[in-house]
């Protein structure tokens, strides 16, 4: 229960009256419903479960608590994974679909 994966919001748009976004998970992107994270905008980190943002990542809390953990683990410097730099919001374009791709 509850495969939730953190990702960064790189696009926000409206579809059929609900707020949607495109979320980058570290090189791959997928659309997600942002209706349950009304406060997010471009650059926010959210937790996505079955195509919905269920929570906003509290980056400050994460950093604070991780510093304590890193100390406990005697980590000299915290080697945090890079934010996905690959896809910038202004560069994002949906990939062109091939004509005739069947819905199967």
């Amino acid at each position, binding site marked *: 229960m509850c495969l939730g994966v953190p990702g960064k919001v790189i696009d926000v748009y409206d579809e059929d009256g609900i707020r949607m976004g495109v979320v980058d998970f570290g090189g791959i*992107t997928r659309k997600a419903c942002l209706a349950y994270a009304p406060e997010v905008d471009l650059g926010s980190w959210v937790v996505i479960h079955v195509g919905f943002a269920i929570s906003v990542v509290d980056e400050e809390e994460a950093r604070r608590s991780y510093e304590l953990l890193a100390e406990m683990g005697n980590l000299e410097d915290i080697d945090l994974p890079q934010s996905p730099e690959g896809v910038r919001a202004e560069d994002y374009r949906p990939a062109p679909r091939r004509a005739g*791709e*069947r819905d199967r």
Partner: protein
Amino acid sequence: MSGAAGERATDFVLRCPVPLPPGATVLLGHGSGGKLTQGLIRDVFVPILADAGSELARLGDAAVVEAGGQRLAFTTDAFVVTPAFFPGSNIGELAVNGTVNDLAMMGATPLFLSAALILEEGLPLEDLGLVVTAMARACERAGVALVTGDTKVVERGSADGLFVITSGVGLVPEGVQIGPERARPGDRILVSGPVASHGVAVMSRRAGIGFEGALASDTQPLTDLVRAMMAAGDVRVLRDATRGGLASVLNELAEASGVSMLADEAAIPVLPPVRAACEMLGLDPLYVANEGVCVAIVAADDAEAALAAARATPAGSDAALVGEVVEGPPRVGLRTGLGTTRPLIMLAGDQLPRIC
């Protein structure tokens, strides 16, 4: 059952030496490359078609046979991937590279290919043109000639667009002995590139999954990579890690050679976007299909040299040594970063994306 089809079915049952459970049908899992596939091969195909000691029973990626004083490698492969077009490639390129690689996995120089196309009524000719063009380009890149072919058309609904079946033949140089049964305790395990890229790229185009990004199939000919590794040292086993993923291949090889294998989870290369896609879908990258990746089992003394040779080729730039062969019954263990070891078992059928 009545009618001609019913009679054929009865005939088969009466004459077939293998007891098949009545009413049993083919499941999708039989094509997944896991235990069900193995079962079908072991319990139905091999007993009916061959003897225990035969070349077929050896179950190599290609058969190595002798004719006119030469050793030939001979293989066939069917390509039914859906969708036929996916990021980075299409079914045509896959069909050429897949067969070229099966030959290369026996240490052979791939030479000639045949192609049979099964086309569904209604397939746009433009799509067919793209597939065949891709095949031509792939043959050129791999240095093989497509010398014969066949085409059939089936009614709408019978072929999911198109199916491509390729067969290939190559020459095995004098003295080359590469086969699935040749791994020995002490040998090292090499993976030629990052895993799971192909399966994830294909999945990303399936309706209902739909993610985009830096995903592309890894399909490519591995001939040069194999040649470079063989020149660097004693390469004993080669197998391309197609359906069923790296985990299935290691299990097959452990079984064929009667050895245990240990691999390090952290050493197995996976591209970051592929890892992210697997996280999202709850998939284990070790069970996801590849196309342009192979496993090589190399004598320990030659492992570093083989790795360097692989890394010097375009297809092997991310090659890694991921584990070793050890004494023991056929099984594969995976060491975690925490120091525990868990078995890497063969799955029955396909992995399914999970929600939880």
